[in-house]
C-alpha cells in the first residue's frame, strides 16, 4: 500500500523517521509552515525557515525516496506578534509561488484573537491571488466554535469549500465540515487530538468521501507513521480497501493537486539519489545508502 502524509513537520524529525516512513509506504509528505516551538522574534529566522521548506527539506526527503511538498503561511500563534507578522506577510508571496508549494497554510485560529483574525483573512486573500488551496489549522481550545468560525470566514472571502482543507477535526466537528463541502482532515496525534481507533470509527460512520488522515508529526509526542498505522488498523477492523485508499492517499492528492503542483508522477518516477551523496557531506555521513523502500512492511 502507498500513502501520503499530508500534514507532517519533517524539519522536526530525524532521518530514522524518513527511513521508516519510506519503508511503511509513504511516498509523499506535505509539510505545513508552523510554529517551531520556540517563537521567532526576527523576520530573518522566519525567512530562513520558509527557505528550508522549499530547499533543504525537499532535498533531505529526496534522499529517502520521499517527495516533499509544503504549505506556506503565517501560523496563528505567531500572528499575535503583530510587528513580526507584518514583515512575514510581505515575504509570503515570494514563497507561495515556489514549485513544491501546494497550499497556503496552516493558517487559522489559536486563541481566536483579533490579530489572528486579521492575518487569517489576509492570507485567505493571498490564497485567492496565487490560486492555491488553503490548509486551515483549527484551535485546540474552543474547537467546535473555532471550526465553525473558520468556515464562516472562508465563505466571507468567497473561497469555494473544495479549495479548503479543515484540519484537526474530531467527532464533534466532522459532520458540519462535510455538510458544508470542505475536506475534513484528522490528525492522529497521541493523547491530545485523535487516536486511530477513533479514526477507524469515524471512517466507518462517515465513509471516505473528503476525509483525510494525517499525522501532524512534529517536535511533540507524535508519530510519523500515524497514517500507515491507521491504514493497518482499518484493515484489521474491516474497513474496505477503497475507503483506506481514499482516506490515506487519494483524497489528499485530490485536495492538494488543485494547486497544480502535485502529481502522482512526482513519486512514481522518483529516483533515490543517495548513492550519489555518500561521503562526509550529505545527510548520510559514510553510511550505506538506503536502497529502495519496501512497500509491504507496515510496522505497528
Amino acid at each position, binding site marked *: 500500500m502507498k500513502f501520503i502524509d499530508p500534514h507532517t513537520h519533517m524539519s522536526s524529525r530525524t532521518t530514522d523517521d524518513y527511513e521508516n516512513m519510506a519503508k511503511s509506504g509513504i511516498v509523499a509528505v506535505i509539510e505545513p509552515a508552523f510554529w517551531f516551538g520556540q517563537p521567532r522574534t526576527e523576520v530573518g529566522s522566519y525567512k530562513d525557515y520558509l*527557505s528550508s521548506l522549499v530547499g533543504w527539506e*525537499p*532535498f533531505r526527503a529526496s534522499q529517502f525516496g520521499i517527495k516533499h511538498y509544503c504549505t506556506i503561511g503565517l501560523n496563528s500563534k505567531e500572528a499575535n506578534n503583530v510587528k513580526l507578522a507584518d514583515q512575514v506577510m510581505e*515575504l509570503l508571496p515570494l*514563497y507561495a*509561488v515556489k514549485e513544491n508549494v501546494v497550499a497556503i497554510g496552516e493558517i487559522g485560529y489559536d486563541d481566536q484573537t483579533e490579530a489572528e483574525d486579521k492575518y487569517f483573512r489576509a492570507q485567505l486573500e493571498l490564497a485567492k491571488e496565487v490560486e492555491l488551496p488553503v490548509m486551515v489549522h483549527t484551535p485546540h481550545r474552543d474547537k467546535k466554535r473555532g471550526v465553525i468560525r473558520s468556515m464562516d470566514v472562508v465563505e466571507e472571502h468567497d473561497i469555494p469549500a473544495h479549495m479548503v482543507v479543515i484540519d484537526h477535526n474530531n467527532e464533534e466537528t466532522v459532520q458540519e465540515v462535510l455538510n458544508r463541502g470542505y475536506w475534513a482532515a484528522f490528525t492522529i496525534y497521541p493523547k491530545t487530538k485523535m487516536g486511530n481507533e477513533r479514526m477507524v470509527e469515524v471512517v466507518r460512520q462517515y465513509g471516505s468521501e473528503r476525509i483525510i488522515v494525517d499525522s501532524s508529526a512534529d517536535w511533540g509526542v507524535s508519530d510519523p507513521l500515524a497514517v500507515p498505522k491507521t491504514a493497518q488498523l482499518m484493515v484489521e477492523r474491516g474497513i474496505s480497501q477503497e475507503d483506506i485508499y481514499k482516506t490515506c492517499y487519494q483524497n489528499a492528492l485530490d485536495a492538494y493537486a488543485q494547486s497544480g503542483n502535485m502529481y502522482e508522477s512526482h513519486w512514481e518516477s522518483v529516483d533515490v539519489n543517495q548513492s550519489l*551523496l555518500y561521503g562526509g557531506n550529505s545527510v548520510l555521513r559514510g553510511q550505506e545508502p538506503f536502497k529502495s523502500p519496501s512497500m509491504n512492511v507496515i510496522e505497528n
Partner: protein
Amino acid sequence: MIYFMDMCSNGNFSEFINQTLSKQEISWIKESSEMTKEGLNNTKFYLRFGRVYRHIQLKAVPEHVSTVFKNTHELVRFYLLTYAGTSPDQEVLEKLFDTGNTSETITLYKSLQYLESPEKYVHRVTEGIRTNILEVYDAIAYSNSFPAQYLPELAFNQLVLKGIFNERPIYLIEGLEKRLNDELALTAYDYIHERWSAGRKVTSEIWLLLTPILSEKHTDFLTKGIQSGDELQSKAIQLAIVDSKNQNLIENINANHPGITWNEIGEQIHTNNRQ
C-alpha cells in the same frame, strides 16, 4: 520572438528558445519583461521569476546550445534577469538568493559568470560551496568560469576539497590546473595520509593537486602509491611527478610520462562510477 542580450557570447540561446517554446510561452515571457521595465526590484518580478515553472514547459537544453543551462526553466529565468541587457541590481540578486528554492538557486549560480562585475558575488559563491545539496554544488563547480576567475584561494580550495570528499569529478572544475597552489597541495597530501592510515583508498584524481609541492623528499611516499597495485593510481602519480618538473624526483623514481592526461584519468574514474 525574444532575444537574449549579448552578455554571453552564445547566440544560440535566442534561436533555441524561439524555436522550442510555444507562442503562448513566448508571450508570457514578453509580458513578464514588459511588467518589469521600471526595474526588477518589485514583487511582480519576484513572482514572475518564481512562477516560470508554471508557464514554461520543462525541456532539456541540448549541449550544443548551452553546457551551462540545462533546461528551459533555467534559460528563461536567466533571460528574465538580463533581458534589459544590463545586470540586475545587487539588491535584487541578493533577495533572489535569500528566498530561492533549489532550482532557482542553481540558475543564479550559473548566471553570475555572465553578469557585470561578478566579483560582487564572491561572498555568495563562497557560501554556496558550503551547500550539502549536490545539484547546487555542481552548478558552482562545473561549466562555470566564476570559481577559477574570482574566488580567493581559500574558497577555491574548499570547492576542490569538497569535490574530493564527495567523490565528484574535479577534472571538470574549470581552470583547476591554473589555480593549483601549495596550500591545496598540503591539504591533499595530509588527506592521502589520513585515508591510508584508515586503510582507505584515494581517488586517482587527487595526485594532480600535489604537483606544486612534490620534491625528492616525497620519493618513498610516492613509491608506496605507485606500488599499491592500482594501475590508474600509478599512472596518476607518475603524471604528477612529471608535472612537478622536479628533476631529482623524476630521476629517483625513474618516472616516465604515462601517456595519459588528467582529463582522461578523471573520465576513467567517473565513467566507471556511473556504470
